[in-house]
C-alpha cells in the first residue's frame, strides 16, 4: 500500500523491515518475509501486476528460488490457454495459483459469466489482487494512472511469496465477488496441503457457529502451523456483528490511518460541507441537481437516487443526460461500487458529484470519473433541501491529501463485538489494522482499466495482519501461529475513539491496533493449541464427543471457555467470584521479572496470583486472575486491562466481563 507501511513503522529505523534486512527486493538485500508463503483465498490474482513480479524493471531475477518445502503448483489448464500465465506464474514470487468453482456451478457457469481467460485463477473483480498485494506485494512498485500521485506501493511483507487460491467469483458488472463455502473449504484444504505459512481470508462468514465448515478448516490449518487472518466483517457500527469468532483465527477489525484526503463542496448559498475526496480538479460552480429528480422516465426511482451505472443495471442507464449534462449531481450511497456512481454521472454528461451517505458509514476517498466529494449522512437532509431550490448551484473543490491526520479511529463499517459465539466468554475481534482508503494493486477489468485502486473494508485490514504474521514468522520461525497472534495482540495500541477501558472501545479494537515493532519483541506470549481449542468447544458448543471432552479434562484441560489461554479475557458473568487461568512463556533473550497490574473494571475487585513472575528465557508459568463482585451495576458490561511489565515490555491483555446475576 502507499502509506500504511510507514504508518505502522515498518520502514522506520529499527522497524521490522530493517530488522529483517531491508526491503529493497534484491538478492543482495533479502528482506521482509523471505521464504514465507502467504496463501490468499480470494477472487484470484492479476499475474502481470508489478507487485507480483519476480524480476526488477530491467528484467533481472530478484528471487533465488522457491521457498523450501512449499509444494503448491499452478493451474496447468489455465497456463495452457493463457500465454501470460506462463511468464508470470509459478515464479518464486507468485508461486502458486489454483481455482475452485464446483460449488459456484462449475466451468459452465463461469463460461456464461466471464470471458474464457477468467476460467482460471486470473482475477476479474480485483479484490484478490488488492488483498494479495497488500499482504505481500513487492516493495517500491510505482502506482500508475490516477494513483500515480501516491508514488510507490509496497506489501506489508514485500519479500513473501504469494499463493493465490481463487474461490470467489464475480460477473462482468464489476459487482461484489462472492462464493460458496464448498469452494472456499476446498481452497483452504489445498492451501494446507501445499504448505502455506499464512492464510488471508477477506471474506464474510459466520458470526456464531464455531462448527461452521470454514471455521473448522481453519482450526486444522492452525493446528498444522498456519497463521490465519480473517476479516471481522463490515456490519458496524452495530454491536454484536463480528464474524469469524473462532479463537484459532486472528479476527481483524479495520481502522483509519494518517493519510487524510479531505475535500469539500460549496453550495450557492455559501454553505460548505467537508468530506473525503481525491478531486484533483474543481468542478463548478454549476447547477446542482438531486439525482432523484433526473432519472430517465422508466428508470427505477431507487436506482436513480443511487446513481446506478449502466454496468450495474444490465447495461441500461438510469440518469437522463438531458437533465444531467453540465451539472453537479447529488447521489445517495447504495450497494453498488462508489466509483460506478461517478461513472454514471460522467456517462450522462455530468461534471461533478456529491456522494452522500444514507446511514452512519465511513467516508471514502476514491478515484472517480468526475470530481467528487463524499459527505456524511448528517449532511444529507440539508443538501437535498438546497438542491430542491430554484437555481441551486454547487462547486466541488480541489482536495488536499495530508499525512498527519489523527489516527487510528475505528472505521465506521468495522464489525464489533461482543461475539455471538462462546457465550460471552470470548473476545472478538482480536485486534485492528488499517482498512480504510487503502491503495493497492488491482485487476484492471474490475477497476475501469486501472492497475491500482483504493478500497475500504475489513477485507483490507486482514491482509495487513497476514503480512505482519509473515514478517514475524520470518523473524521467529519457532513461533506457533498463536504465539504470533499473541505478540500482535499484547503490543497493540489504542484507537482514539474514547476511553480505552470503555467496553465499546474494546469491542471495536479488540486488544488494540497493531504495532509491529513491539510485536517483534513482545516479552511474553500466550500460546494455545488444538487440544485447548477442542476443550473450548467442549465448553461452548456441541460437536466434540463426550469421551474426548472427558479425556481432555483428564489431561488437565479446563472446559471453562474463559480459561482458553488467549491473550484476552472475557467472562460472561461475575456474580460473586470468578477465576480464570492463564499461562505465559518468556520469549525474550534474558530472564525477566514481570509484575501484574490491572486497570478499569470499576466495581469489580481483581486479584492476579502470583502478582510477579520471574521467568528464564523459554520458561512458562501459569497464573490466575480472580474477579470479585464489589458493587458494579448489575448486568453492566465492564472493560479493563491486565498488563505484565518487566520495565521494558508491557504485555497487555484486554478484559471484558458482565457484572452480577
Amino acid at each position: 500500500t502507499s502509506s500504511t507501511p510507514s504508518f505502522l513503522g515498518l520502514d522506520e529505523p529499527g522497524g521490522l523491515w530493517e530488522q529483517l534486512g531491508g526491503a529493497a527486493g534484491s538478492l543482495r538485500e533479502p528482506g521482509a518475509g523471505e521464504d514465507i508463503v502467504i496463501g490468499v483465498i480470494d477472487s484470484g490474482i492479476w499475474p502481470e501486476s508489478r507487485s507480483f513480479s519476480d524480476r526488477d524493471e530491467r528484467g533481472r531475477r530478484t528471487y533465488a528460488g522457491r521457498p523450501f518445502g512449499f509444494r503448491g503448483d499452478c493451474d496447468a489448464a489455465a497456463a495452457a490457454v493463457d500465454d501470460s500465465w506462463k511468464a508470470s506464474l509459478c515464479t518464486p514470487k507468485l508461486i502458486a495459483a489454483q481455482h475452485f468453482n464446483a460449488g459456484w456451478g462449475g466451468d459452465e457457469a463461469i463460461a456464461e459469466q466471464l470471458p474464457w481467460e477468467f476460467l482460471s485463477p486470473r482475477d476479474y473483480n480485483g479484490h484478490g489482487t488488492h488483498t494479495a498485494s497488500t499482504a505481500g506485494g513487492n516493495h517500491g512498485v510505482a502506482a500508475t494512472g490516477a494513483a500515480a500521485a501516491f508514488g510507490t506501493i509496497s506489501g506489508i511483507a514485500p519479500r513473501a511469496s504469494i499463493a493465490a487460491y481463487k474461490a470467489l467469483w464475480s460477473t462482468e458488472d464489476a459487482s461484489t465477488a462472492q462464493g460458496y463455502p464448498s469452494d472456499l473449504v476446498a481452497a483452504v484444504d489445498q492451501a494446507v496441503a501445499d504448505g502455506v505459512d499464512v492464510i488471508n481470508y477477506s471474506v464474510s462468514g459466520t458470526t456464531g457457529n464455531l462448527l461452521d465448515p470454514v471455521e473448522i478448516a481453519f482450526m486444522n490449518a492452525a493446528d498444522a502451523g498456519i497463521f490465519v487472518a480473517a476479516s471481522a466483517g463490515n456490519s458496524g457500527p452495530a454491536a454484536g456483528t463480528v464474524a469469524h469468532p473462532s479463537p484459532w483465527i486472528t479476527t481483524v477489525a479495520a481502522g483509519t490511518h494518517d493519510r487524510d484526503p479531505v475535500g469539500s463542496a460549496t453550495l450557492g448559498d455559501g454553505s460548505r460541507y467537508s468530506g473525503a475526496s481525491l478531486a484533483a480538479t474543481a468542478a463548478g460552480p454549476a447547477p446542482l441537481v438531486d439525482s432523484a429528480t433526473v432519472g430517465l422516465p422508466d428508470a427505477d426511482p431507487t436506482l436513480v437516487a443511487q446513481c446506478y451505472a449502466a454496468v450495474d443495471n444490465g447495461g441500461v442507464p438510469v440518469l437522463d443526460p438531458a437533465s444531467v449534462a453540465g451539472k453537479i449531481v447529488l447521489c445517495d450511497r447504495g450497494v453498488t461500487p462508489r466509483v460506478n456512481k461517478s461513472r454514471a454521472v460522467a456517462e450522462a454528461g455530468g461534471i461533478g458529484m456529491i456522494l452522500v451517505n444514507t446511514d452512519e458509514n465511513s467516508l471514502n476517498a476514491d478515484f472517480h470519473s468526475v470530481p467528487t466529494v463524499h459527505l456524511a449522512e448528517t449532511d444529507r437532509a440539508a443538501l437535498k433541501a438546497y438542491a430542491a431550490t430554484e437555481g441551486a448551484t454547487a462547486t466541488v473543490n480541489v482536495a488536499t491529501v495530508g499525512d498527519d491526520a489523527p489516527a487510528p479511529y475505528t472505521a465506521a463499517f468495522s464489525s464489533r463485538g461482543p461475539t455471538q459465539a462462546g457465550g460471552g466468554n470470548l473476545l472478538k475481534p482480536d485486534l485492528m489494522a488499517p482498512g480504510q482508503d487503502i491503495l493497492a494493486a488491482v485487476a484492471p477489468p474490475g477497476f475501469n482499466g486501472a492497475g491500482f485502486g483504493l478500497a475500504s473494508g475489513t477485507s483490507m485490514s486482514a491482509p495487513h495482519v497476514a503480512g505482519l504474521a509473515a514478517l514475524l514468522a520470518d523473524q521467529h520461525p519457532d513461533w506457533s501461529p498463536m504465539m504470533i497472534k499473541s505478540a500482535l495482540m499484547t503490543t497493540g495500541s489504542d484507537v482514539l475513539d474514547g476511553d480505552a477501558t470503555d467496553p465499546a472501545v474494546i469491542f471495536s479494537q479488540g486488544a488494540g491496533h497493531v504495532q509491529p515493532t513491539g510485536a517483534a519483541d513482545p516479552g511474553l506470549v500466550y500460546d494455545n493449541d488444538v487440544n485447548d481449542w477442542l476443550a473450548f468447544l467442549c465448553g461452548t458448543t456441541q460437536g466434540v464427543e463426550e469421551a474426548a471432552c472427558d479425556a481432555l479434562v483428564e489431561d488437565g484441560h479446563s472446559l471453562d471457555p474463559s480459561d482458553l489461554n488467549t491473550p484476552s479475557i472475557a467472562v460472561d458473568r461475575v456474580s460473586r467470584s470468578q477465576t480464570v487461568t492463564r499461562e505465559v512463556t518468556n520469549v525474550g533473550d534474558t530472564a525477566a521479572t514481570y509484575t501484574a497490574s490491572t486497570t478499569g473494571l470499576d466495581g469489580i475487585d481483581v486479584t492476579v496470583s502470583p502478582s510477579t513472575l520471574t521467568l528464564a528465557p523459554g520458561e512458562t508459568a501459569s497464573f490466575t486472575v480472580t474477579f470479585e463482585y464489589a458493587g458494579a451495576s448489575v448486568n453492566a458490561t465492564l472493560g479493563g486491562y491486565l498488563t505484565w511489565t518487566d520495565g521494558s515490555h508491557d504485555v497487555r491483555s484486554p478484559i471484558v466481563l458482565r457484572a452480577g446475576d
Partner: protein
Amino acid sequence: APDDETTSTYIVQMTLDPVATYDGDVDDLAATRVGPDETIDPEAPEVLEYTDHLQEQHRDALADVDGGEPLYDYVYAFDGFAAELTEAQAADLAARPDVVAVTEDEKVEVD
C-alpha cells in the same frame, strides 16, 4: 415449494479432526500435519493411504443415502465432502453417528 428431488449443495463434516478416525499408524503417519513442516509430503505413500481412507469413508456415507459423486473431498484441513443432496439425503446423513454436521452451502462475499 421444493419437491423431493430438488437438490442443493451441502458440506458434510465427518469428524472435527481428520486423524481421529484413522485406524492406520498415526505415529508413523504425521500425515495430517501437512502445513509448513517441509518434511511431510502429501504424495508420500502413507499420506495417500490415509487420504484414500478418508475418501472411502466419504463415499460409503454418500452411498448409504444413494448420493452421487462428491463435488469435493476434503482431507487435510477438514474431514468431509461437498455434494449435491436432497433435503432428505442431507437429513439422513446428519443422523449418522459418524457425521458431525451437514451444512447447506450459503453464499458469502468479500468484506
